[in-house]
């Protein structure tokens, strides 16, 4: 038997793919946890079909989980895979194009029988595992199904139950390949199947069999070692974007003694925020599954009127329905946070795929002059900071605030060094000072120097007042149809939001220097790809810088000045150039759009290529 050669690498991209019923997401999740415990930096990208159980073996039913892990800082789940694990022919067909030349394929041969090959639309049932079409890759064709069945034959389980363990065989095999121990997953399995020890032991047996198979299988020549990353010291946990949003809301409410009320209607990919929050009743969190999207927004308005930290979350189609209610929140000037976990649109669009095409909806999507501050999260862990900041702005400036996330950061995960309570900002909650009275009459719309009114809630004695969606008279809040008053109120509400720019941090450059030839300007989940592309372009000797916007409305006060220092500004977005429009409009600069709307995040190479192309084009001129 040949000893395997250990190969040391900085980072590796591995992609697990199979039927949506193959347990791919669980396998990927477990592998992530293990390498993270080992100390690697990670970035993940689950990619699954919208159908819960698409027909088995078909191209439509392929579910994928991609993970990049490394001993260096990792910003994206990677463009091309080093290792592709496929449970059937369809999974190979869909993913092969993204495997690096010479990359490793681990294939379950049982998923390449005649039926599967036909379902995957291989012409005349040609089998890529035997027809030499994969000669440029390192192919490990293993009959995982058969080996799992063999290993578990004494367990007395049904064939179906046995077959469901085959993902554990794969996982064990991959653990061996990356020099990782299966211990964490064994613990996980014991806990998950606490009530069914037989199933637990079968899964563990499959896992160990896969691991041992790697150890004894003489064809396997290379074993990878990825050293732990040198992340700053502290306590870490793995976090995905939706959980980070949920935790931020809890943190904001607790830190500021406000009760958290989260109202939502189930929608992909935002529902996990509701799921996560509903598990935390111990923190006094109230979750409300409303009868529809409109009701969720309105219930949040009611809760805000009642003095709670009120939040509603959804995705694009739901935000469209909430539009009128958001206008009411603007009119009432009541604090509230609205989360939009964006997905492919318009209409139902691509529910499980990612996109950034709701930016203009967020900024402009209401009737009348209805400005709402808009923030965007750039990574799973950034969701925490952004949601916390949104709560602060909402409460301190008495306004609804929109948070944009998307399917990519919502489901993707990374290690997160979570903050301690003492590091979290305390909000200034505006209560009346006593100045808000004229002739003993309370003035609900009496404002401070930042145009902010106090937050008075029912139950406070001496302050009874009425609010509403009709235009209100300055100070008194009484209904007013006077044209001059209306214009004054429209301006006042707009100025109140503009003034928020004075209370947010100045824009900083993420990488590179002011005055560089090219600025790559991004917002939201494109952060990782742009950051990596910028790093590589700088290493290649180009004068490039990267700015990632968190505050999209209002913009940081120094942004215009900063942008003018760069020769060219290019804006990669998963839409048709929405931020590009805003930048051109606001700063009158010739920003160029790099657009992608394929339901998938940018790859690093895509950004690099497009930036270089734009540069060449400019040079030719």
């Amino acid at each position: 038997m040949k000893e395997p050669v250990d190969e040391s690498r900085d980072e590796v991209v591995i992609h697990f793919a199979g039927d949506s019923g193959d347990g791919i997401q669980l396998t990927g999740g477990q592998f992530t946890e293990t390498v993270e415990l080992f100390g690697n930096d990670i970035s993940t990208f689950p990619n699954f079909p919208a159908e819960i159980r698409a027909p088995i073996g078909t191209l439509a039913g392929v579910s994928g989980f991609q993970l990049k892990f490394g001993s260096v800082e990792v910003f994206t789940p990677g463009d091309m895979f080093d290792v592709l694990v496929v449970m059937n022919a369809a999974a190979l067909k869909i993913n092969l194009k993204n495997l690096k030349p010479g990359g490793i394929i681990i294939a379950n041969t049982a998923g390449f029988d005649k039926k599967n090959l036909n379902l995957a639309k291989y012409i005349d049932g040609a089998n890529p595992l035997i027809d030499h079409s994969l000669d440029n890759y390192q192919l490990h064709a293993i009959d995982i199904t058969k080996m799992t069945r063999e290993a578990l034959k004494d367990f007395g389980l049904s064939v179906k139950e046995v077959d469901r363990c085959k993902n554990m065989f794969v996982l064990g095999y991959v653990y061996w390949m990356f020099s990782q121990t299966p211990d964490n997953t064994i613990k996980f399995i014991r806990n998950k199947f606490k009530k069914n020890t037989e199933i637990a032991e079968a899964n563990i047996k499959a896992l160990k069999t896969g691991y041992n198979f790697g150890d004894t299988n003489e064809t396997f020549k290379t074993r990878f070692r990825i050293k732990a990353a040198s992340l700053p010291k502290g306590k870490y946990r793995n976090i995905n974007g939706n959980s980070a949003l949920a935790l931020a809301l809890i943190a904001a409410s607790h830190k500021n003694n406000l009760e958290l009320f989260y109202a939502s209607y189930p929608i992909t990919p935002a529902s996990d925020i509701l799921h996560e929050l509903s598990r935390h009743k111990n923190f006094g969190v109230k979750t409300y599954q409303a009868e529809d999207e409109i009701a969720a927004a309105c219930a949040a308005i009611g809760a805000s009127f009642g003095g709670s930290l009120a939040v509603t979350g959804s995705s694009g189609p739901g935000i469209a329905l909430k539009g009128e209610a958001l206008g009411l929140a603007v009119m009432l000037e009541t604090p509230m946070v609205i989360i939009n976990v964006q997905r492919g649109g318009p209409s139902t669009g691509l529910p499980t795929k990612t996109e950034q095409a709701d930016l203009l909806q967020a900024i402009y999507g209401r009737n009348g002059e209805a400005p709402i501050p808009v923030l965007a999260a750039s990574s799973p862990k950034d969701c925490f900071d952004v949601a916390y900041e949104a709560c602060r702005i909402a409460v301190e400036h008495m306004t609804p605030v929109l948070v944009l996330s998307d399917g990519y950061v919502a489901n993707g995960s990374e290690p997160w060094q979570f903050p301690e309570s003492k590091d979290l900002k305390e909000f200034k909650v505006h209560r009346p000072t006593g100045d808000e009275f004229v002739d003993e009459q309370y003035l609900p719309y009496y404002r401070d120097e930042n145009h902010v009114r106090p937050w008075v809630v029912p139950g406070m004695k001496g302050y009874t007042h009425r609010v509403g969606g009709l235009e209100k008279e300055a100070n008194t809040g009484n209904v007013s149809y006077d044209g001059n008053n209306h214009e004054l109120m429209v301006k006042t509400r707009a100025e109140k939001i503009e003034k928020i720019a004075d209370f947010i941090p100045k824009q900083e450059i993420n990488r590179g220097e002011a005055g560089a030839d090219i600025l790559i300007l991004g917002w939201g989940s494109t952060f990782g790809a742009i950051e990596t592309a910028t790093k590589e372009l700088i290493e290649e000797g180009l004068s490039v810088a990267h700015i990632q916007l968190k505050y999209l409305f209002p913009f940081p006060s120094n942004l215009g000045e900063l942008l003018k220092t760069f020769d060219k500004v290019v804006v990669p977005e998963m839409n048709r150039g929405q931020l590009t429009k805003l930048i051109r409009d606001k700063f009158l600069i010739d920003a160029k759009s790099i657009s992608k709307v394929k339901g998938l995040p940018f790859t690093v190479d895509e950004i690099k290529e497009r930036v270089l192309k734009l540069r060449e084009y400019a040079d030719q001129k």
Partner: protein
Amino acid sequence: MQTKNKSNGHGENLVAKDFATDQDVRWCPGCGDYSILKQIQTILPSINVPRENIVFISGIGCSSRFPYYMNTYGMHSIHGRAGAIVSGLKSVNPDLDIWMITGDGDSLSIGGNHLIHLLRRNFNVNIVLFNNQIYGLTKGQYSPTSPKGQVSKSTPFGSVDRPFNPITLALGSEGTFVARAIDRNPIHLREILSAAHDHNGASFIEIYQNCNVFNDGAFEEFTDKSLKDKNTLYLENGRPLLFDNESKGIVLDGFKPVIVDMDSYSPDDCWIHDDEDKIKASILAEFFDYTEERGNYLVLLEYFIKIRGIPMSRYSRIRSTFINLKEKLIWIHCSVVITSGKLNKA
């Protein structure tokens, strides 16, 4: 906290006018809304709730201007959504005494979804639905309760849609207090409003309210001196169903209520109202009043049902509310259908 405006509440002997604001009431002269406003302002001093704990929430429509005229906390919101706002507010502050003011367009058309779910969840709130069978604020289009054939701005040749019955809807939504009253009987209206307030759960009151501009006389059969006795029956718990100065009564023939002459029947023969019997309430709601086209018919006033279910005063009780109601009540499918919609007069 500093208190500068007139304090009130417990033991401060407020009167009705303390609940009026300085805003001019802008309903059309002669509108039925004035009576409802007055009756609510009249009962509030006696419900023993501090003024700052009272909140009026409305949607959009003539009725929904109501909160501006109440010197309490209030919100005039957006069309149809008062019920959803009420649900959020009650969830976070169960101690508030919340009144939702709405109309037939607001809560039976654009906001229908929220109304049924507010009733289903059974928050301890009061829902006051002004039913004038017309859209008033938008100047006279037919509404979901307008009789078939209603001539309105949007139906110049008469509407072809069938109306529905708010009482049946409320019962079908698992309402635990479902009542009907009329703007022109202030004493009875006040009784119902007080009973609704006392009910621990979502109380639903449909109030027949005359729109004297766009739908004048819609409820004349129940308000005209010469007609009202013949056409209205006030339900009273534990009492036989008698009306028209007790000259007429209602007996049950199987599942079918039949009007009889009391010359040949005794009150013991009559249907005895039981306000905790949901099946009877459903039969009552189905069999009387709602006709597709306007004509002579009987209207039942007073509450149809008052179930002592566990109200959803706190959000976490939502499940127990459901279970309790289901255990208590068994739904029997009613097989009797009235095709004409009119009362079968014996």
